[in-house]
């Protein structure tokens, strides 16, 4: 460990001796050779360089990776647009032909065949039924007055005939 590091911080404990032993364990023999061999066997990073933006030449054509990327993107767009157009037109033609309609139960509102007979029932409260009220009789003008005057002498004669009550 760095000397400055040791002095500035608290002193390394006895327990850290174990970690230092662990950190100083010798590497296995032939480690560097094996790493060299592995690196030689590793695939060259430039093999797929056209995907990473490097220049790629084939047969003197001189296509750059950017051109290839643009071509790929354009192809993808064309395929996608064509597919979408086809699906759209298939859908629009299909609507003109046979289309599946949901089965309607209106022909059989009672639903005698099925178990859900009241599925579409709409309850109408009886108060909403129109009440038939007979039209009021038309009153003639002064008819009330005439009736009153006709009743008055009869009342007077009745009071005269009745005996006086205690």
């Amino acid at each position, binding site marked *: 460990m760095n000397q400055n590091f040791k002095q500035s911080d608290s002193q390394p404990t006895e*327990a850290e001796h174990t970690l230092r032993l662990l950190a100083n364990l010798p590497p296995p023999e032939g480690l*560097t050779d094996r790493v060299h061999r592995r690196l030689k066997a*590793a695939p060259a990073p430039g093999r797929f360089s056209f995907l990473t933006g490097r220049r790629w030449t084939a047969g003197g054509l001189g296509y750059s990776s950017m051109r290839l990327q643009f071509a790929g993107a354009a192809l993808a767009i064309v395929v996608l647009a064509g597919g979408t157009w086809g699906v759209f037109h298939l859908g629009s033609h299909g609507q003109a032909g046979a289309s599946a309609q949901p089965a309607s139960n209106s022909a059989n509102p009672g639903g005698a065949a099925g178990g859900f007979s009241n599925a579409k029932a709409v309850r109408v409260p009886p108060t909403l039924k129109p009440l038939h009220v007979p039209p009021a009789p038309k009153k003639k003008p002064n008819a009330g007055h005439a009736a009153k005057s006709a009743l008055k002498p009869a009342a007077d004669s009745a009071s005269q005939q009745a005996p006086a009550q205690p």
Partner: protein
Amino acid sequence: MSTCSAALAGWMENPATSAREQSEATREMQHEATANSETAIAALVDEYAATLYRVAYSVLRNSADAEDAVQETYIRVLRHRDSLSEIRDARVWLVRIVWNVVLDRKRRSKTRPETDDISDLARVLPASGLTAEERVASAQHHAQVLRAVEQLPEKEQRVLILSAFEELSSVEIAQVLGTTESTVRSRLFRARNLLSTLLSHSRSAR
């Protein structure tokens, strides 16, 4: 006609020929750069493979896994060989790469129990000049310390492990962990305190 073309050839450049020459020159330069970078990587392997192995082993505690981590580190370096010249401190850069590789591996193999390996590991640690009884006692002590280190919080544990490497200063540890030097110091202080507390607890429990 032939005289005309011969006269024209003197001042008119053939575009196909120039493009071919240019591509050949580019290819030669690439070959040269590749050879240079391969030489540079080979030098890095010779110089730092042992250090990287020890860093990997201190975390993984498995020889084969540590070697795999070192190889993976150099393969990552190979992928960035074009930018090798931009690296200021190759040692710290490599330690940082191997540290990330090791942490990735450890995270992936979290389900595998490691506690059983500690006793074996304690026996592997050098104990020269000790009697058989002292060796057993030393192995037990090492195992106890390693178990206590395992119990430390992750950040403190990492700083403590890296501080055991003589070739890494606090500034370099901070660079490897992506923190500041003061953070490294405070974490190390906390780690030491926690470690001594854990060890005293385990001794009193006996």
